[in-house]
């Protein structure tokens, strides 16, 4: 059920400020696509336009077109709530709901969408936690608060929460930047497993991580402070890291970037 995302001529604004400009790309199903680039180049902003989270920020708006298997996400009559149900998201810092137990956190999306049947919830919670490689660590304390887990476990809990609603696409905004190397490895392994089911898009500052986990890599850049971010190129990860087409990409990857 993983789906393809097509982006055409997309620009995003914060109030009058244009954060990203004229971005077009195709994100293939059942692949991991990594976004890399310097800070402030609009990677995260672009990611958030893909599930219409960008517009949650007051004054933020989007121009251009994003389609999910031929459905225009910004079309008239499209409910952003439904878009987000199809395109899940994992955030930079683990953000489990503090008032809820581990079980309730994973079940939150289904419950809030109206699923009440206990057996169905139990199944989904178990399969999601298994899918997030967390089940064995928490199966005996499902009723304990999610905030009591370690940072890496919390992040996997957030991934379990995201996949529990069976999205088509999973967006990850620097999911490992707040984690230690061991937890990072656990998340990276998980990403490799999940890509057989989901279209995964990951923003990362860590180029080794991009090289390790992704099939395709997109490089974003800005020409100076205050200018909008642009997509420089997108290609197979092996090609981007070995033999990029653009000079700017090569400079960034080899660390020669100013």
């Amino acid at each position, binding site marked *: 059920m993983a789906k393809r995302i097509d982006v055409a001529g997309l620009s995003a604004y914060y109030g009058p400020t244009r954060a990203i400009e004229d971005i077009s790309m195709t994100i293939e199903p059942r692949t991991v696509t990594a976004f890399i680039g310097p800070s402030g180049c609009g990677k995260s902003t672009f990611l958030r336009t893909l599930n219409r989270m960008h517009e949650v920020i007051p004054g933020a708006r989007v121009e251009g077109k994003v389609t999910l298997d031929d459905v225009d996400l910004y079309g008239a009559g499209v*409910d*952003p709530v439904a878009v*987000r149900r199809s395109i899940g998201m994992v955030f930079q810092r683990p*953000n489990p709901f503090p*008032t809820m137990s581990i079980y309730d956190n994973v079940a939150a999306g289904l419950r*809030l969408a109206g699923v009440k049947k206990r057996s*169905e919830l139990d199944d989904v919670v178990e399969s999601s936690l298994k899918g997030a490689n967390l089940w064995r660590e928490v199966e005996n304390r499902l009723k304990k608060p999610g905030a009591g887990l370690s940072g890496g476990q919390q992040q996997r809990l957030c991934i379990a929460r995201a996949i529990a609603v069976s999205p088509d696409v999973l967006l990850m905004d620097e999911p490992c930047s707040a984690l230690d190397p061991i937890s990072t490895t656990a998340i990276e392994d998980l990403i490799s*497993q999940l890509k057989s*089911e989901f279209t995964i898009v990951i923003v990362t500052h860590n180029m080794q991580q991009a090289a390790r986990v992704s099939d395709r890599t997109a490089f974003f850049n800005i020409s100076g402070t205050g200018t909008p971010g642009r997509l420089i190129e997108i290609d197979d990860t092996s090609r981007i890291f070995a033999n990029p087409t653009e000079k700017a990409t090569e400079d960034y990857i080899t660390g020669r970037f100013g």
Partner: protein
Amino acid sequence: MSGTAPTATRPTPRPGGASSPALDSGTRRGDAVFSGTVRGAAILLLLLMATIAAFLVYRASDALSANHANVVTYTGQWAPDDSPPKFGIGTLAWGTLVTSLIAIIIAAPVAVGVALFITQYAPRRLAQVLGYIVDLLAAVPSIIYGLWGILFLVPHMQGASQTVSDVLGWIPLFESGVFGRSVFTAGVILSIMILPIIAAISREVFLQTPREQVEAAYALGSTRWEMIKLAVLPYGRSGVGSAIVLGFGRALGETVAVAMVLSPSYIFVTKLLQPGGNTIAANIALQFGSAFTTGQGALIASGLVLFVVTFAVNWLARRITRHGGAGGERRGLLALLRIGGRDESTHYESSFDVAATSAATGGAAATAIVPVQEDRGAFEAKDSVQEVAEDDAAGRARSHRASRVGAISGGVLSAPSPQRRLRSSLAGGLTVATFVLAVLPLLSILWLVVSRGTHALNLDFLTHSLRNVSEDQVGGGVYHAVIGTLEQAGLATLMAVPIGLLVAVYLVEYGRGALARAVTFFVDVMMGLPSIVAGLFILSMWIIGLGQKANGFAGALALAILMLPIVIRSSEEMLKLVPDSLREASYALGVPKWRTITKIVIPTSLPGIITGVMLGVARVMGETAPILLVVGYISNINPNPFSGDEGQATLPTVIYNTYTSAQKASNDRTWSAALLLIIIIMLLNVIARLIAWWKKPGRA
């Protein structure tokens, strides 16, 4: 890729879920209904304010046009019901200003000292306890301060007044005063009343000093006092300024305590220590009982003046925070940067002889390189040699760490000069002194209330009314007043909490544009509303305007008006504390906004909201002034707050109606009622704080 089969990791697909091609799932209606409801509550609030204002102005203008005297300069008796009617508000406004100024001059420096002591000098454990004590003192109702003022302070003030006039008598302001019931005494009472509020706000402001700034200051080798000057005070300046102005506004509107202490006269007071003077609020409480139509209108007119003045003062306080907030922060940072350059060049000499540094140097180094503590809260850096010596083990650990850092950086860890350390110690001592100064009168109040209140406090006192109990008779009780207090506060809560919570949700989750700005503005207006003016609102609209009865329900309405802003503001703060990442996590699961609010945001902030509500209840339970205006006092039991004109007693009005008695039996009952009121209010406060602590999110 691990061996997990893809099909096993896939959660069961759900019907109606993401897989449906149509992305319009019809969640918008729920959102529309919900946002309509909260917006409706916000509009209701505005309409209420507009109606109230209209009735006030209408009543006041009638009396003002009937007035035969110059309303600003007239200094004769308050006689709006004579023919022709004569009254002047100028003397009252002057008296209000003078008493409040005296209060703020005394209270502001002491309160800032108290806040500094609690946040910067007291050990963390003690600081928490002291913080709670200050919060609880802020909850003592004004009727208790008034009772203490007239029965304890006024007699004792005669000696103090004599001393002040002996020393400063050559200044006309302080000429020959021997009589305790002066504007000076009133000012002193007010200063004690507003001190806890100013101290509490200042404490919060100081606690929010960004950790990086504190660390930066310490990292430059500051003593604690230097750190305070570099980081805490610059950061807190605007917040403290606004706290002081808020305290001033509070003093302007104080009613019963001043009414009980002053011996009223209608002159422009210039001799602070001599008897006489009056304030707008006190005059309303004193004159209301004997006022007819024009008299009520005249009092409403004076209340309107008070309302406008307190409103202006509160507006000023808000402006200070809004414009100073970011600026103050910037200034603090700039100061840090400047000092940074200077310190680097002058205070560090080059030497590698770290091992030779004495224990004192170790302490200084510990001050310079403050260990990073995990907990939020007051910083504990050691200032003096003794402190370090006492804390031997920790001190060694620190100097060890310090020497390591020193060795790495290659600088010398020289102790601050004796003068700098002395100055820091002196400043610390000064804050301790202000704390003691602040706590003494409060201890005196509590001691009096407890020691005198226990004479008559027994089971009979809780189960009997004052019906047919004469002043010299022992026995009788306040059962009737406890019922009235609980019923009126309960009804007020039932009205204020739903509306308040909806308005808060509107402001935090939906509020944009003109409506939100207007609502925020009026909540601020209501926040600084003197309680007597809330009474006048209900009097002019509900009782005079709509012809309703002066009963317990009218009292509850007035209390609800006082409670609403507390509920809105505290809920608003709590809702704002819910991190946006939680809302985004919920949105990212495809949950509509209204369900995100009701299932994620509100439950997360619920303990805080409950705490805010309980603090609001505690606050209105102690109110006297508005109840005096809209509920008649009776000494027998009336359990029905909706009964015609019968009236209903509350604990504060029992105190207000009995404190003048010269009989010991009646006096004992007054003090016992005061003790009971304090116990109830303190219990509510303590429970509220326990809830906040117990249900704090993330407490495993």
